């Protein structure tokens, strides 16, 4: 009986000893890739339309200029993108571009690193493109018709 109790205590100590273990924030969230305040739309609350990768120039070690984008849209934009129709007035697209970084949990994968820019295309009588960059994010340019056309041209990733 005594042995049983001692044995149980030993096992319990081993199993429960780790309860207090604290994991650093950076090992739980992708802290580097956070969007700061300063955007006119809640882009991460929107649904995604597609994602894309620009491998850039390889520097042998890896990720020199590689970026990773996700195109988000408000409801009107997502509906049009998935139906493959033109974006109606009121549709807003948001393209977040991150620098790529190696995935600390998987050799062979890359994940979002620091934010490079966030571009919005606001579809209307005159379509507007607005670019945000820096930390905190600030409006830097009116990104122009070419960029807007590029973003509108990104096709929705097909999902059953």
């Amino acid at each position, binding site marked *: 009986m*005594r*042995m049983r109790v*001692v044995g149980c*205590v*030993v*096992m319990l*100590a*081993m*199993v429960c*000893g*780790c309860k207090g*273990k604290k*994991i650093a924030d950076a*090992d*739980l*969230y*992708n*802290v580097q*890739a*956070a*969007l*700061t*305040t300063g*955007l006119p739309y*809640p*882009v*991460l*609350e929107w*649904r*995604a339309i*597609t*994602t*894309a*990768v*620009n*491998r850039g120039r*390889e520097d042998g070690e*890896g990720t020199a200029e*590689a970026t*990773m984008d*996700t195109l*988000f849209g408000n409801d009107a934009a997502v509906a049009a993108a*998935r*139906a493959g129709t033109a974006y109606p007035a009121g549709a807003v697209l948001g393209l977040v571009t991150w620098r790529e970084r190696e995935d*600390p*949990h*998987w*050799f*062979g*994968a*890359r*994940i*979002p690193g620091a934010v490079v820019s966030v571009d919005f295309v606001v579809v209307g009588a005159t379509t507007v493109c607005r670019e945000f960059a820096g930390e905190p994010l600030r409006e830097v340019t009116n990104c122009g018709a070419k960029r807007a056309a590029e973003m509108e041209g*990104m*096709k*929705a*990733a*097909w*999902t*059953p």
Partner: protein
Amino acid sequence: MRGLFASSQRVRDGWRIGLRACGGEELRDSLVGMTGARRTLGVMAVGAAVVGLVAQAIRPSLGRPEGPRVEMAVPPQVREILVRRCYACHSDEPRLVWWDEAAPMYWVVASDVQRARAAVNYSEMGTKPLATQRAVLFESVNQIELGAMPLRIYLLGHPDAEVTAEELATLKKYLAPFATGPASAGAGASESAHEDVTEAAGPSPNGVPFLPGFANWRVISTTDRGDDHTLRMITGNEIAMRAIAAHQLPSWPEGAAFAKSTWQAVDDGHGRLVPGKFLQVEFMEKHRVQYAGTGGWGFARFVGADLKPYGKDAHFENECLGCHEPVRDNDYVFTLPLPRGSER
């Protein structure tokens, strides 16, 4: 025999957790309390010796498994590392040192070898398609890098078995995931207009449900996979998104669910990789009690445009759990979610 293996596995898991976190201190404190029980110990020791001798007769066989034997097609410097560090358990040639040969140690080792072979047997890997061999090598490197292989408990008895930093670098250099782009350059982007399928072609063999609407969930993260030239998007249901915003990780709440959609990466002709063919969607849904056997998560995978359930039988989930095991401290979740609540 089965039950014995199962319980030895659980004890071992206890060891693994205990040793990893507490540096043995609690253990020492509890052992001090044992001196008063010395007489009882003596009686038990004699009993144990007798049982120990009888136990030697019980020896599960570690003979050569069936099927054609073909080694992997890898350069010698890669093979050497695997032979040195992994073949003891993951091959037809289990290498046991003398203290492995006596029961009950032998039972532990035999069970390890059998389970290891069932997961990966390098002696037959050459019969598999090249893509599968490559995937196994990537999983191997990642199990090493995350400290899961060789098994921690095994390293206690075989301290010289650990993979060195140089060896790991050799393996990584050989695999070079981003050295080449996807083969399907110039292919068009994904299909566009489509009907939403809200049903899978059938249930997952382990009974974990298909979760319709995952394409409308919010984005947790994306990954660019150089090992198999795919792009992936990880989305989460409301419960999961609230847990991220409320900073609750790593304990994901009951009902939290993830979907990971995987597409072939294709070059869009402008130097950009975009999602091409839809390959599969995978789910993890948290129900602590219902899925207690798989870390509290229900795993399911549905393959192709017709969402065919993956897995010959319910055992497929061991594959999922096995590969997710090294991130158990993160509640078996690989993905680092994009922080939420700070933007806007």
